[in-house]
């Protein structure tokens, strides 16, 4: 009759009071796991066996050259635009916390304007700058630049997405900076560090922990946003798939092809984000668990009652 015990109390050394411990059974947990698993299997089967998904076509195009080319462009764009976004966003965030009211309001106007207008419009604006200003002179005599030469589709795409991203990113960075203990700023001041040194060496590195997760969101969002550049006929991943199905009308299989690649890249990014978070968590007592540890945790059924255990 003796049930399996969880508490080591019940080991032979200490059965002083002769009581048997009956551990809590997680029936609900087991049942829900089975239900979810069953639903998953049924769903997967129905997806795999449904010929309307056109798995043979998916297989053919998964390694198509133009899809691969589109993937490269998507990655390039994401990299370039996030680089602009992160750098300019940090600058804007610092500007918004400046003591100089001019600098502060300039940053504020920038953010309001770029968050307020659709990216599509911004993209079209940059691309067709020449329609509005055929010759760019910066108001300087002698300078006459042909807007169409200056701005290729790719440049327009990077400018449009990057400048727009900077506006969103600045809000994220600003929140991150405000989350750093003001005592850090004071300590730096007292040591004689300048504002910029403090920001770069003390505040920003600590803000990173708060900045990274939403930035991860934004990067993954950007990966998909690059599809907007199809209006500029820049053949990114999704647009490359669209070009193919515009010819052969295999819409659904080609969308699946694009999705598969997006999923792959997103997964890689997520792993990268994890290690970045871990890097910036250095100096903390509890580092976030590695993926392996996480997998172990997912399969661990022993729950810690203490709240401390979940953090």
């Amino acid at each position, binding site marked *: 009759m003796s049930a399996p015990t969880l508490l080591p109390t019940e080991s032979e050394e200490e059965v002083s009071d002769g009581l048997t411990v009956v551990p809590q059974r997680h029936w609900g947990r087991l049942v829900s796991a089975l239900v979810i698993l069953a639903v998953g299997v049924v769903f997967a089967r129905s997806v795999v066996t449904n010929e309307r998904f056109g798995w043979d076509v998916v297989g053919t195009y998964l390694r*198509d*050259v*133009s899809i691969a080319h589109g993937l490269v462009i998507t990655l390039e764009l994401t990299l370039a635009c996030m680089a602009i976004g992160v750098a300019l966003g940090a600058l804007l965030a610092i500007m918004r916390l400046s003591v100089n009211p001019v600098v502060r309001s300039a940053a504020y106007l920038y953010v309001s304007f770029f968050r307020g207008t659709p990216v*599509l419009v911004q993209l*079209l604006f940059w*691309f*067709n*700058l*020449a*329609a*509005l200003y*055929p010759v760019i002179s910066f108001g300087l005599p002698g300078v006459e630049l042909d*807007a*169409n030469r200056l701005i290729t589709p790719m440049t327009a795409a990077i400018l449009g997405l990057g400048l727009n991203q900077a506006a969103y990113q600045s809000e994220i960075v600003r929140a991150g900076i405000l989350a750093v203990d003001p005592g850090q700023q004071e300590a730096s001041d007292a040591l004689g560090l300048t504002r910029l040194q403090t920001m770069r060496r003390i505040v920003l590195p600590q803000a990173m922990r708060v900045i990274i997760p939403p930035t991860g969101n934004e990067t993954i969002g950007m990966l998909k946003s690059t599809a907007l550049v*199809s*209006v*500029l*006929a820049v*053949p990114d991943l999704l647009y*490359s798939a*669209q*070009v*193919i*199905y*515009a*010819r*052969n*009308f295999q*819409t*659904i299989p080609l969308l699946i092809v694009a999705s598969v690649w997006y999923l792959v890249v997103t997964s890689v990014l997520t792993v990268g984000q994890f290690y970045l978070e871990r890097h910036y968590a250095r100096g903390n007592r509890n580092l976030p668990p590695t993926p392996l540890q996480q997998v172990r945790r997912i399969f661990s059924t022993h729950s810690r009652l203490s709240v401390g255990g979940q953090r």
Partner: protein
Amino acid sequence: AACTNASGETANDAPTSKPSVDVNMAAADLLPASVKSAGKLVFASDASYAPFEYFGNDNTTMIGFDIQLTDALAEVLGVKAEHVNAGFDTILPGLQAKKYDAGVSAFGVTDERRGVVDFVPYLSMGTGLAVKKGNPDGLTLDDTTTLCGRRVSAQKGSIQGIEVLPKLSAACTKAGKAPIAIHMFPSQNEANLALSSGRVDAIMADSVPMAYQGKEAGGSFELAPGKDYEPATIAIALPNDSALAPALSAAMKVLLDNGTLATLLEQWDVPPSGIVSSTDLIR
């Protein structure tokens, strides 16, 4: 001048043979000096509209009726033709920005648009109706009242979407029937998908691409029986008061006269009724 008709070895989906024509000096003289010195014309097309303009099997070369037509035009004018793929939304601002010399994307001519761009017409094309396989609802353009109360899709910016369907719908309400529910999709692909998933009952579009796509899509939809509906004029779009208009019109007339246009139409399976008349061309 004799026109060398391209050989008959047309591949059934993508004719690659090119009709070659001679330079017509009279037309070429009409070109503005800037184009003459540049030696090329830049045409913008939204390459998602087979068989007019779309990407070939390599996914990088644009092919289609419009492409070959403009190639021939350029040859008549003694310049090179450069083709740029551009989203529909950027073609017109691009013309104003002088990024492109002309827009060639099966543009339909309407009075309202004439105020914004100049047109060089080259085709008159009827409207076709695509329905679900077997036409379960018995829709036909011979009796447009069969469309009343139905969900009909069209492409954003197509003549069917902005003129034909609203007119037919108005006729339905006048006749005391339910109006047509018009669904406008950004491109033909979404419209096709919506028809095959039963989201809409029919697609109304230019008859030529419709026939072509129906064939290509592997029979998930088909053309409704009956004649084409009122043909509309298709044209090349130029910025207002473009200096290019006379040259292109003249060159187009050359192609019409020497039969190149007819050859191209045949090559791309466009019914002969599609040829624009000389009188239209003059307009």
